[in-house]
């Protein structure tokens, strides 16, 4: 009998032995080393053991009886010190064992981020039963807190298990969404929502800086300064093959032990299997390829022909009640096509990726019934052109089913606020409909829903349709774009009612039909999110038109115009000198604009950071001449100089501009302040125009002087300058919170009515709320984008590479 020594009693080497004993129990006399003081158990089931949903006994693969029956000499709890290939012996802590054939099944160890404090007691990995026991012990103390670093498969299973066990759990993930290697953003969003529903806190784009503690872990500190309390820290950021022993034995080792398709290492009598293996540049972490390897190695050991090949993989997450499935490849390659299905009411998202009439990837959340069928289509490379249209509905599709455009509204909870003006919830409206209010007028009379500004009318109509079924025909409304079935007003209202705080949340919960929107809806959704959730949502430059992304106006030849702010149209010699210098240095054309400032035209993109920096040095900031936001405040010279001036119109203009600049609005906003009714600043055709009179300030809104020409309507009269500023700020915020994207104020006022606008702005309580929310938003957005970009994003303005030389060779 030949002597076989196996180092490591893991799932892969265990499977090798099973195949071997099954095929030829007398082929080898086996000695099995394992550093852990136990035999082979089903390691991938450790998370249910951690949660208490399985017991350790249930996941033991090979017990003492099994090893005994197969005459395996077990040397458990004994480390292998070295392998002497010349003498063909394995040297254990307790002595040598000779071999004819040797198998490395040393597996992998957790990758530990080498941040300060990573070696404190209480920092654990999630690889073996010892780690699992350490975590369960930590969870015994009431109120104990866990921080899990890594939002991949392993980290999330640990997080869910620790939560079930009673701990307060926070997951830190470096990337933008969870399980980014297996899921796309929409599925990652649903997974996050599911975990948050279990009471788990999820932080994405969270980078760990340091772990602190006196003799034991106490806190985790993030790069952004956030401090989290922790009784235990679980590191689940990745694995590292254990190759030290193989390396010392002189075997060929790259990122792991290199093997051929027969699992043979560089030594013909030495083999390797499992996570410690590198094959054709691949490493392996999931169990399916390890079992394939085991099958191949068993055959090789019995001198039979077998070849290992890398196959597509599928992933599931072992968290009870969490249904996700991911298979194949849905990220890389050319000429691909997506099929997307979303059902917000059931929390379902499915995406199939096709290439050349073949399915290459599938991501599913909330409905995974067809996962295995899709996986087999991927593995077999089946031609799906004949069933393309119904493919996403799975093998049992019988025709008829399609996404319901009303499902977003149907999915709203009863306490979701539909009418913001009158504070009417869905439950109240549905009760009224069920109580007999079968149309819009009677609903308005009964509940006041949509009876004020009217922007929620579409939603109320949809509730009528959902509640009354076919008995109600809602008038067709114009959706935002082809990506969804909802109007702008409905999207806005639902973002607030469902507290949607990210773009993937909007796409999923409102049933977007595309993967990530289009150039029409993305800028609108981006604005709605930042206007409603200034602190939670971050502006997405990739959802902005070029001018807003580059903070300059693109011209027809691809160059840009640059316009610094001139507060209230006032400037001085120093600023003018800097502008003149810049014009000369960057070859700009110079134009005086209608908004009382100076435009520098013809700047190349690469030069933008430099010219901004020069202008910043002279104390000037971006004039936002490119943004859907505050543009200019045009003023006359006012009582300082003019013999007719009644108030300090220049000063008021400057104070307004300093208060409002930097804010994003649905469309551009221009202001004018005139010092007397002669109106030299042309305030009466601005979005907001103030005319000073002896008794105070007349505030008009909704003027226009573009494609439409329109005089402002009177919003209010203010006795003091402070009151005038308050009214203007409140009006701007009301516009930000309610208008459709790309509606100028006059268009918006025409829809909601000036009376409603007045009622809001003139109510002291409502006004105070509007002003407070505006100031919160300004705390985030009132800063000079030029200075920011010069400091942090300068490189992005230059080409990524210049191949003008290489390409011509």
């Amino acid at each position: 009998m030949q002597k076989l020594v196996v180092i490591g009693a893991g799932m892969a080497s265990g499977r090798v032995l099973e195949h071997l004993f099954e095929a030829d129990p007398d082929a080898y006399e086996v000695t099995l080393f394992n550093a852990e003081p136990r035999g082979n158990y089903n390691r991938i089931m450790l998370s249910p053991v951690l949660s208490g949903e399985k017991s350790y006994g249930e996941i033991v693969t090979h017990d003492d009886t099994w090893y005994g029956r197969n005459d395996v000499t077990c040397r458990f709890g004994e480390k292998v010190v070295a392998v002497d290939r010349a003498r063909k012996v394995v040297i254990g802590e307790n002595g040598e064992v000779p071999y004819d054939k040797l198998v490395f099944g040393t597996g992998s160890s957790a990758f530990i981020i080498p941040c300060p404090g990573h070696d404190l007691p209480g920092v654990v990995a999630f690889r073996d039963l010892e780690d699992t026991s350490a975590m369960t012990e930590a969870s015994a103390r009431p109120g104990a807190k866990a921080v899990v670093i890594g939002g991949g498969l392993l980290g999330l299973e640990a997080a869910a298990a620790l939560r079930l066990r009673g701990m307060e759990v926070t997951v830190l993930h470096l990337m933008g969404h969870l399980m980014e290697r297996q899921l796309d953003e929409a599925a990652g969003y649903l997974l996050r929502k599911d975990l948050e529903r279990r009471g788990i806190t999820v932080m994405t784009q969270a980078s760990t800086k340091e772990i602190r503690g006196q003799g034991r872990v106490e806190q985790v500190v993030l790069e952004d300064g956030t401090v989290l309390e922790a009784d235990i820290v679980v590191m689940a950021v990745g694995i590292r093959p254990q190759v030290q022993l193989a390396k010392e034995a002189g075997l060929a080792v790259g990122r792991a032990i290199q093997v051929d398709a027969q699992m043979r290492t560089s030594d013909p009598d030495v083999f390797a299997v499992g996570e410690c293996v590198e094959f054709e540049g691949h490493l392996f972490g999931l169990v399916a390829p390890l079992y394939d390897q085991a099958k191949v190695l068993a055959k090789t050991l019995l001198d039979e022909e077998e070849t290992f090949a890398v196959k597509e993989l599928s992933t599931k997450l072992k968290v009870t009640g969490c249904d996700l499935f991911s298979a194949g490849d849905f990220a890389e390659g050319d000429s691909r096509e997506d099929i997307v299905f979303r059902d917000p009411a059931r929390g379902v998202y499915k995406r199939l990726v096709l290439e050349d009439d073949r399915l290459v990837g599938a991501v599913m959340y909330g409905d995974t019934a067809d996962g295995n069928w899709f996986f087999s289509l991927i593995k077999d490379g089946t031609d799906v052109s004949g069933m393309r249209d119904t493919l996403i509905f799975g093998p049992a599709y019988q025709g008829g089913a399609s996404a319901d455009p009303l499902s977003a509204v149907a999915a709203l909870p009863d306490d979701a606020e539909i009418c913001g003006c009158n504070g009417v919830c869905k439950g109240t409206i549905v009760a009224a409909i069920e109580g007999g209010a079968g149309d819009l007028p009677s609903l308005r009379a009964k509940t006041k829903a949509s009876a004020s500004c009217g922007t929620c009318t579409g939603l109320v109509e949809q509730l009528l349709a959902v509640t009354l079924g076919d008995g109600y025909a809602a008038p067709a409304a114009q959706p935002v774009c082809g990506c969804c079935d909802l109007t702008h007003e409905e999207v806005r209202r639902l973002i607030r009612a469902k507290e949607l705080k990210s773009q993937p949340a909007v796409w999923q919960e409102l049933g977007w039909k595309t993967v990530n929107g289009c150039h029409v809806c993305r800028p609108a959704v981006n604005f709605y999110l930042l206007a409603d959730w200034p602190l939670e949502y971050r502006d997405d430059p990739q959802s902005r038109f070029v001018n807003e992304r580059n903070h300059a106006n693109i011209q027809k030849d691809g160059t840009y115009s640059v316009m610094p702010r001139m507060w209230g149209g006032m400037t001085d010699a120093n600023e003018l000198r800097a502008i003149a210098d810049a014009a000369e240095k960057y070859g700009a054309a110079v134009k005086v604009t209608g908004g009382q400032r100076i435009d520098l035209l013809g700047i190349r993109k690469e030069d933008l950071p430099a010219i901004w920096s020069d202008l910043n040095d002279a104390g000037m900031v971006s004039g936002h001449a490119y943004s859907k936001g505050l543009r200019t405040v045009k003023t006359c010279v006012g009582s300082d100089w003019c013999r007719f001036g009644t108030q300090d119109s220049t000063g008021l203009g400057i104070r307004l501009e300093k208060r409002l600049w930097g804010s994003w609005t649905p469309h551009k906003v221009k202001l004018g302040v005139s010092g007397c009714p002669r109106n030299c600043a042309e305030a009466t055709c601005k979005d907001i125009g103030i005319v000073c009179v002896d008794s105070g300030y007349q505030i008009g809104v909704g003027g226009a002087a573009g494609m439409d020409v329109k005089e402002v309507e009177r919003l209010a009269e203010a006795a003091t300058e402070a009151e005038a500023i308050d009214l203007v700020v409140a009006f701007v915020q009301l516009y930000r919170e309610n208008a459709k994207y790309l509606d100028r104020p006059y268009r918006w006022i025409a829809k909601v009515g000036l009376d409603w606008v007045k009622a809001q702005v003139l109510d002291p309580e409502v006004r105070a709320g509007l002003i407070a929310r505006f100031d919160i938003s300004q705390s985030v957005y009132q800063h000079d984008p030029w200075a920011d970009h010069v400091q942090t994003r300068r490189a992005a303005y230059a080409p990524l590479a210049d191949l003008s030389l290489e390409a011509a060779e």
Partner: protein
Amino acid sequence: MSWIDIGALEDVPLRGTRLVKTKLGCIGLFRTGEAEVFAASNTCPHKGGPLNEGIVHGRRVTCPLHNMVFDLETGAAQGADEGRIETFPVRIEAGRILLDVTALARSAA
């Protein structure tokens, strides 16, 4: 094939773009997914708009000047518009973006 390393994947933001200068004009790099980048001529055939300044959505880009939409896989204009932009093979390896410059060399010859 002649692959040239032109930069790190993370230098192109998700749904963002970057420019590569070549002797034959600019090539836009369009990052459509976590690990998906397309390369295509940066010039809109309509009025010469710089496509790297457009909004990237799905596997498409919209020209910033007049909203013409191009499929980045085929280079074809979408909808009623006609026209095509040249596309170039690109791949990602170990977090680096590799561009195949064979086509460039060929056109230059």
